């Protein structure tokens, strides 16, 4: 009977139903669109955040230019107290050189590094170290360099010089020059895309800096920072210091590394990450705020149109009460109606919002987005939420209707 | 005596017997699964080898047969009584005694108004609407009966022999007939389920007459109750092998299970330390070598566990490697076949059909016109009313109650 009543009621009052459906659909559509765009953007941002896979930067302690570190110290990193927590590291040697390829000339940065070097340290198991370990998200179109004269080039530098896998490039500095075969083009999502990456010894030769490196990026398994971890070790008691030292905070691991690399200063790079994190948080806030505003607006729209239809239907409610319907039965009928409409509205809103998100991202971000699977239940839930929030006041109103006053005369 | 009959009937035709026995087997399965990784195979073997278990399994078709019998008997008996459903199902319906007596014409008019068919006889009026689920139940029970009979027969009496069928060779003795495998054909013929078809043509010479018969993939062809179940394909190349010392020359058809390409099989060269391993090379064209006939054999000669020569030889050529010569002038196709004698198989096929029919009959009947019946029997000065419905119960109940009300109102007047 309930279904029969709902069916008749929905089919025979098209105007009111369409109005209600519209408000709910709008709410669900806007929520879907916002969340779709938001999901995509935060996904991209998270990708960038992830690009800071390494969390400790080891630099020369001395501030002046040209200071550098000794490559021989690298092995010691595998011998420190927290050696098992250090999952990887990569040395870098930077140099500004003149690049020439296919007739085009440019100044650029050449970076010598380990791509995936087998490192043997006495008393330890051999391990693979290099950028392939600490930056697994680097997307190389082509191959990683295998030979000493092979190099990979950042995607924007490659575009500038018209390079692709298989082409050749000449790097020169102070009269010395090297010819590199490009084995791949790398997309990293960061400043690396402007650089040329070649094996460390080759670049050391090119820059006449044998055995030297500019910096080391270390990736370590650490525990999240807490209040205790961020305290200055200098102010700790012996017991506290012991606990700090034996807890794998990023700071304590950094200190560990610093101790073995001569003339270095190791600093955690979580500052950058946390800055990005707070940006993401703010962005989250804005999106959540906007979404809830949109939802609230459509809830108000639902409420208004329900109020209007309730005014029309107050005779009906009064009659139901006269026939002996208790509050639950009245609510069941009206809420059932709203539930059905919001289900339809949710589906429609999802379809609409999905298109909207795609449109917006095409126009604004000029990128295609893939709507995630969870968006569908979310849209339905948003529709339910809007409908439920919008129907509280009208339903209360309906329950307060006094049959005597309405049916009089 | 009567009690005993009743008791027997209720044990043998009990609704719960089949599920209980299946439950027992499930329990045995679980216990086996605790200790053994091959629980299902073990259970089947156990059932085959343990007579009490086989007898327990045999109780299932027995029970189903009894149920089918009593169901049919009930149906016929009730049909004579004009109301079609068995006694036990009435227990689940409604039954009430009224003080009033009905006026038959009025009652019939009311029943007809509600869309019921009526029949009245000596002191009773029966009314019904819709179609009985009996046919569906019959087919379902029959389906289960056939299924479990099939399973029983299959587990206890299945015999299976694996033997190769080779082109141009006589049929294996296990087939129980004289004949020769004339041709084996594999064709790429994308169908609804199968992508390829296999045709094994067998020629029989029965004295003077000569007949041929073709065996396909599915349903499996049979000969005197023995099914041909092709398992996998192989090749019998004719190989001539000469080692460098020329001590002997091996030349013979060798039976190799080397299909599909990549699969390896080997042959011991008799009276020598040599073993030759073969694989079928991946075809150069898209066509399958087995169906195209363009074979290319990769071989590896092994002498005392050490490979001494390797190479590839296409059909019809000769290759020499490290002094070893291998010629491959001819090849015959092989189908490795299980010759299965299984009387249960056809039962299971028929059971599948029966169950399909049961579902096909039940669904529309239950949805569109479920059986609803009521009966009013004169009972002393009052009326005994019985009602039962397979579906559409709510509407049927309200009609029934309305008519009861009418009867007792008539009484009041």
């Amino acid at each position, binding site marked *: 009977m309930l279904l029969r009543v709902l069916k008749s009621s929905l089919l025979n009052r098209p105007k009111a139903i369409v109005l209600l459906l519209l408000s709910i659909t709008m709410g669900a559509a806007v929520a879907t669109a916002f969340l779709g765009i938001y999901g995509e953007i935060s996904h991209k941002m998270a990708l960038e955040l992830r690009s800071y896979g390494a969390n400790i930067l080891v630099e020369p302690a001395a501030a002046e230019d040209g200071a550098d570190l000794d490559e021989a110290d690298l092995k010691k990193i595998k011998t420190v107290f927290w050696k*098992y927590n250090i999952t990887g590291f990569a040395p870098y040697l930077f140099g500004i050189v003149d690049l020439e390829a296919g007739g085009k000339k440019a100044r650029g940065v050449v970076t010598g590094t380990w791509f995936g070097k087998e490192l043997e340290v006495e008393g330890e198991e051999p391990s693979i170290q290099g950028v392939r370990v600490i930056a697994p998200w680097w997307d190389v179109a082509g191959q990683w360099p295998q030979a000493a004269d092979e190099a990979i080039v950042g995607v924007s530098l490659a575009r500038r010089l018209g390079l692709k896998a298989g082409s050749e490039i000449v790097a020169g500095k102070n009269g010395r020059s090297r010819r590199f075969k490009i084995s791949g083009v790398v997309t990293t999502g960061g400043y690396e895309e402007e650089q040329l990456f070649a094996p460390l010894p080759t670049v050391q030769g090119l820059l006449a800096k044998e055995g030297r490196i500019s910096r080391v990026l270390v990736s370590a398994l650490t*525990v999240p920072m807490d209040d205790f971890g961020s305290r200055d070790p200098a102010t700790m008691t012996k017991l506290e210091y012991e606990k700090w030292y034996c807890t794998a905070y990023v700071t304590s691991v950094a200190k560990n590394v610093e101790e073995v690399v001569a003339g270095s200063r190791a600093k955690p790079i979580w500052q950058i990450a946390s800055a990005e994190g707070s940006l993401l948080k703010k962005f989250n806030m804005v999106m959540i705020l906007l979404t809830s505003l949109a939802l609230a607006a459509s809830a108000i729209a639902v409420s208004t149109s329900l109020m209007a239809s309730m005014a029309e239907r107050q005779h009906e409610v009064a009659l139901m009460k006269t026939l002996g319907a208790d509050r639950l039965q009245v609510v069941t009928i009206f809420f059932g109606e709203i539930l059905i409409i919001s289900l339809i509205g949710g589906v429609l809103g999802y379809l609409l919002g999905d298109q909207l998100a795609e449109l917006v991202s095409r126009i604004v971000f000029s990128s295609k987005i893939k709507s995630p699977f969870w968006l569908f239940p979310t849209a339905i839930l948003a529709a339910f939420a809007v409908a439920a929030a919008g129907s509280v006041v009208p339903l209360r109103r309906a329950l307060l209707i006094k049959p005597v006053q309405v049916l009089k005369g | 005596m009567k009690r005993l009959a009743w008791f027997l009937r209720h044990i043998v035709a009990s609704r719960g017997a089949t599920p209980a026995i299946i439950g027992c087997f499930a329990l045995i399965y679980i216990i086996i699964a605790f200790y053994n990784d091959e629980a299902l195979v073990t259970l089947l073997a156990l059932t085959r080898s343990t007579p009490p278990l086989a007898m327990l399994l045999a109780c299932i078709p027995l029970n189903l047969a009894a149920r089918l019998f009593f169901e049919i008997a009930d149906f016929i008996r009730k049909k004579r009584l004009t109301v079609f459903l068995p006694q036990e199902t009435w227990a689940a319906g409604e039954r009430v005694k009224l003080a009033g007596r009905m006026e038959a014409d009025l009652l019939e008019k009311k029943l007809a108004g509600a869309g019921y068919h009526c029949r009245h006889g000596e002191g009773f009026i029966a009314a019904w609407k819709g179609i009985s689920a009996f046919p569906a139940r019959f087919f379902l029970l029959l389906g289960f009966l056939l299924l479990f009979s099939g399973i029983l027969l299959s587990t206890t009496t299945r015999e299976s022999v694996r033997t190769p069928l080779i082109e141009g060779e006589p049929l294996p003795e296990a087939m129980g007939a004289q004949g020769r495998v004339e041709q084996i054909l594999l064709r790429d013929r994308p169908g609804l389920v199968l992508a390829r078809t296999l045709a094994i043509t067998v020629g029989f010479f029965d004295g003077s007459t000569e007949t041929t018969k073709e065996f396909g993939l599915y349903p499996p062809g049979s000969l005197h109750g023995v099914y041909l179940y092709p398992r996998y394909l192989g090749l019998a190349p004719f190989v001539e092998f000469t080692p460098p010392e020329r001590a002997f020359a091996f030349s013979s058809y060798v039976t190799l299970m080397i299909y599909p390409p990549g699969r390896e099989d080997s042959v011991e060269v008799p009276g020598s330390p040599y073993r030759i391993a073969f694989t079928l090379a991946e075809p150069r064209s898209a066509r399958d070598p087995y169906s195209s006939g363009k074979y290319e054999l990769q071989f590896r000669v092994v002498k005392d566990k050490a490979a001494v020569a390797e190479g590839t030889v296409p059909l019809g050529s000769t290759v020499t490697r490290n002094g070893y010569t291998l010629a491959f002038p001819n090849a015959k196709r092989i189908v490795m076949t299980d010759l299965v004698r299984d009387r249960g198989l056809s039962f299971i096929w028929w059971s599948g059909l029966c169950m399909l029919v049961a579902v096909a009959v039940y669904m529309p009947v239950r949805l569109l016109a479920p059986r609803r019946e009521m009966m009013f029997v004169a009972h002393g000065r009052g009326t005994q009313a019985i009602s039962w419905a397979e579906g559409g119960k709510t509407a049927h109940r309200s009609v029934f109650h*309305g008519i009861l009300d009418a009867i007792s109102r008539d009484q009041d007047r």
Partner: protein
Amino acid sequence: MILARGVTMLLVWAILVMGLARAYAGEKAALTAGCAAGLVAGTIFGFFLFAAVPGEIPFFIIKSALAAAFISLFIVAAIVWYRGTAAEGDRPSVRHAVVAITVFLFAAGYGLLLVCRLPYGTDNSQFMALLLILLAMLGLWMIVYRLEPLLPNIGMAKGGTSLFAVSLLLFIASLSPRLDLFSPLSMKVMKLIHDFVHQFFESMLIPDHPFFRTDIWNYIGLLFSNGVGFWGGLAIWFIPTTGVTLATFREPLPSVAHVRQAAVRRKLIAAQLRERRRRLFFPLFAGLVMAAAAFNSSHPSVEYWDPKPLAVKADSAGEIVLPVKDGDVDLKDGKLHKYLYQKGAQKVRFFALYRSGELTVVLDACSICQPDGYGQNEGTVICYYCKTLIPLETVGKPGGCNPIPVPFAVDGSGVHLSAEMLVNTWVAQVQSEKKLPGGGK
């Protein structure tokens, strides 16, 4: 952590007793007696079992008992289904003794699980168990005599009691990977389906895949995928609750044909429908609990794998032998296996772990932190004291917060350790409270 576990256990206990009290509202004395006796007996039996039987056997016994209880649910569901054609009253009318025995069994099961769930077989856990039992008794009294009359009127479906109580026991079991039933069930179901398909092909003489179309074969291949075990297991997991729920729906309502007033008839029918809805509460609730148990089982990472240490003894030569494979225990399963060796007052905890293709044995402590021990998570072990994650590959190497390795030998009979060496290493290398300078701030 112990506290959290204790609270969970108590909550489940409260729900269990509340449900039983609802089911047997009229049998308070029998209920209370059965519950109390069962809890105490179960706990004592549990401690006795763990003390008397070494290794994994107690777990195996308890797990088997749980499995038996789960299987009995199927029997209950089948009986309810086949008996469900005649309408009866909503409350089962049973004797005091039956009530007492029923609740005794459930409470004993709970007590057993209580023992399993308490970490470490130390004196500490006996104390905890005692405390929990006391609290539970208090709760029992409160619930049965105070709260039960306040509960809303929910009917009891036939078979609902066992469904409800067993599902709660299964829920507790699902919290600990060792007792969990759902995961093994999924595995067995996967195996069964796999075997069945093969057997079916074989029996029905259906040719093998070289003849099938690739897409069709891919569909058949779905039956061999990993998900099949999970979904098939899930289907079996819910058969009892679903069966009882449907049986309750199938029960015919009492006839109202004798009533001659239509409105009265309708009112009776409405009341019957309402009553039947109420009776569905317990089966549906049990279904919910089973779902939670299945969820727990498939998300075990919520909790670190931290088995209760098995007490081991040294033989006369002072050697401890850990069999590599012993019944349910398989040292090579990639999981942490904890052991406890006690010599005089000195206890040594250590664990064996199979990682990177070889076995290793280490102390359940590192040389820098307090010996809170380790738990295992995916790919790492965690030091409970400093919460440092240690990659599994490096377990067995000294240094950092890694567990202290000990020398050991593996041969056909198992892992051999020297008891003396164990104690010496522990005493020499493990930090304990008294060795810390200053003893805290």
